[in-house]
């Protein structure tokens, strides 16, 4: 992998001047992912913050070819682009090597776009799918998603008098995609840029489908100060909320192994969306959150052969 000095000399494929919020994890995720590409890249995005903020007509922040189609079909759309590329290549109309990447938030990936993603992965397109996961539908104003953590207050899982935020646990999308037995699946975080760029490089280099699930906090939805985006991402990894691991040709590998996980409250406490969990009488909710982390961590360690 390139050194940070070399990476800093690579051209920015998503330029500045777009309209994403200060402290947004999405654009950081996209830039780090694109640093991992060594061939010409064609990108697509699902409807969402990333798409609306980077393409307000007549402007575009994309220095590479880019397509937005709709909300739930970023994977299917890029699969079509890739298929047309291969068809044109087969007929000798194109020679240059190109790689294809589809971006989507957790709304467009865990929920409404899951079928489209599953289909594209199963069909074996040579494409990378990247989920920038901020744990809710942030573009429409912070509504719960299948990735919203237990207990989080969103506008559709508010912390009310009788309901303390989202009652359900998150679904594990990375494992769902790993179950497609594609060449490369990984979970990464923008706080661990070296790990992320390396994973992106692997994802782009395999022949066939690859999937990256990237922790990308949203200060608006998480109720965190803009300047702690990277710090809170790091804590998500250190607490085991967002383990860094990869599944390469069926081999599971844990990429970050702390001796001991930090307590989940370190992750929850700085975020306004979990404030109600710290009220007296809600201790059992914090215990439930911790128990879930412990269970998943122990399962993942076992799966990765780490004791």
């Amino acid at each position, binding site marked *: 992998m390139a050194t940070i000095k070399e990476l800093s000399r690579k051209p920015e494929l998503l330029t500045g001047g777009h309209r994403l919020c200060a402290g947004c994890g999405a654009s950081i995720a996209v830039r780090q992912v694109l640093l991992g590409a060594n061939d010409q890249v064609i990108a697509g995005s699902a409807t969402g913050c990333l798409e609306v903020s980077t393409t*307000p007509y007549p402007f575009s922040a994309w220095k590479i070819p880019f397509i*937005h189609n709709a909300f739930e*079909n970023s994977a*299917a759309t890029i699969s*079509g682009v890739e298929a*047309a590329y291969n*068809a044109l290549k087969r007929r000798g109309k194109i020679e240059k090597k190109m790689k294809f990447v589809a971006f989507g938030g957790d709304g467009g990936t865990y929920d409404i776009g899951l*079928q489209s993603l599953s289909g594209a992965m199963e069909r074996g397109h040579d494409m990378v799918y990247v989920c920038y996961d901020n744990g809710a539908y942030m573009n429409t104003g912070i509504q719960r998603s299948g990735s919203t953590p237990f207990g989080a207050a969103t506008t559709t899982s508010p912390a009310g008098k009788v309901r303390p935020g989202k009652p359900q646990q998150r679904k594990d999308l990375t494992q769902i995609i790993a179950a497609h037995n594609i060449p490369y699946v990984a979970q990464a975080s923008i706080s661990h840029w070296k790990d992320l760029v390396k994973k992106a490089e692997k994802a782009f280099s395999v022949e066939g489908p690859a999937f990256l699930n990237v922790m990308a906090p949203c200060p608006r939805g998480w109720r965190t100060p803009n300047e702690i985006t990277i710090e809170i991402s790091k804590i998500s990894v250190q607490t085991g909320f967002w383990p860094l691991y990869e599944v390469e040709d069926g081999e599971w590998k844990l990429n970050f192994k702390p001796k001991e996980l930090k307590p989940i409250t370190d992750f929850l406490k700085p975020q306004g969306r979990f404030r109600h969990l710290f009220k007296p009488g809600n201790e059992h909710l914090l215990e439930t959150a911790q128990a879930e982390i412990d269970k998943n961590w122990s399962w993942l360690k076992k799966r990765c052969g780490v004791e």
Partner: protein
Amino acid sequence: MAIRVAYTGNGACAQAMRQVEPHMVAAYPITPQTEVVEEFAKFVADGKVKTKFLPVESEHSAMSACIGGVAAGGRVMTTTASQGLAYMWEMLYIASGLRLPIVMGVANRALSAPINIHGDHSDTMGARDSGWVQLYCKTVQEVYDTLIQAVRIAEHDEVRLPVMVCYDGFSVSHSLMDLEVLAEEQVKGFVGRFTPRYPLLDIANPVTYGPLALYDFYFEYRRQQVEAMATAERAVREIAEEYASLSGRRYSAVEAYRLDNAEVALVSLGSTASTIEYAVDRLRDEGVAAGALRIRTFRPFPKDAIREALEPLKAVAVMDRSESLSGWGGPVGIEVKAAFYETEARPLLLDVVYGLGGRDVGVDDVREVFGELKKATDAGKMSDPVYYLSLRE
């Protein structure tokens, strides 16, 4: 050289697709279109086409992949029916809004509920305002001919709109008819090479597809689609002429049958026109001044041609194979009536809703409608503006 063969409507659709040999086909099987996908998959498996075939997991992804494929710079085609078209609905508007020349065969079928697999026009009529050119075919021959012409219409430099080629489920999709098939090089020569506009794969000139356009630009996008649709009327005509010189078969936006000196006529879309024409011949033998008009191009709507053809008549029944559920009949009837708003003279107009869910329409049914027109001309008015044919009430 052209050869005579026998195919079903689906078979003709698949053969036309094989001869056009697009770069990509993304499709999902659904009754009554399934055979098209099966046959095309076989062409791919046997190496008869170089087309990249995407057996996607849904119609939504079929249209999404087609949008990606054509934006990339490939010629793409798909087919569907009924619920599949309904499932694609969101993407239909994006295909036309992005001005992407996609060609899609639709084996018309009723929409649920109740679930029904047979032919009516509920599916494509639901998509009539989606910005697609819509052509309705009468015969298996026409399915084949229209699919080939549709490629040129969609890719016409001043049109660049997606095109739907509609044919009745079962009565055309599954009916074996003999037809004349062009030689492959004739078809390839006619459709020519696809010249994409602003392809994504032109990496030296990167473009952004599908941007956000709000009140400052959105309206202008739509207005340009209106212009493109108006141009499509001319393109359909010119390409039909060119195709006529190649094949000897001439098609137009509307097709009149024995309308000269006619007093009463039936207007229809699709295969029902054959039954109506048969009935017209019998009625003419009996001295009734009957005629028929078939609307082949429903989008763009050929209002001038319809007015011109029907204006001199005393009474006209518009055969609607779908219900708009608006409280005053089917979409074709409503639009034909609207076409006469500005004319001074107009025939009495009866909207006939018929054949829903595949209910058969025979010669006697058509005679019944002509009987209604006679009653109306005798009375000088329509007793009821909407007539439900062959319905238990």
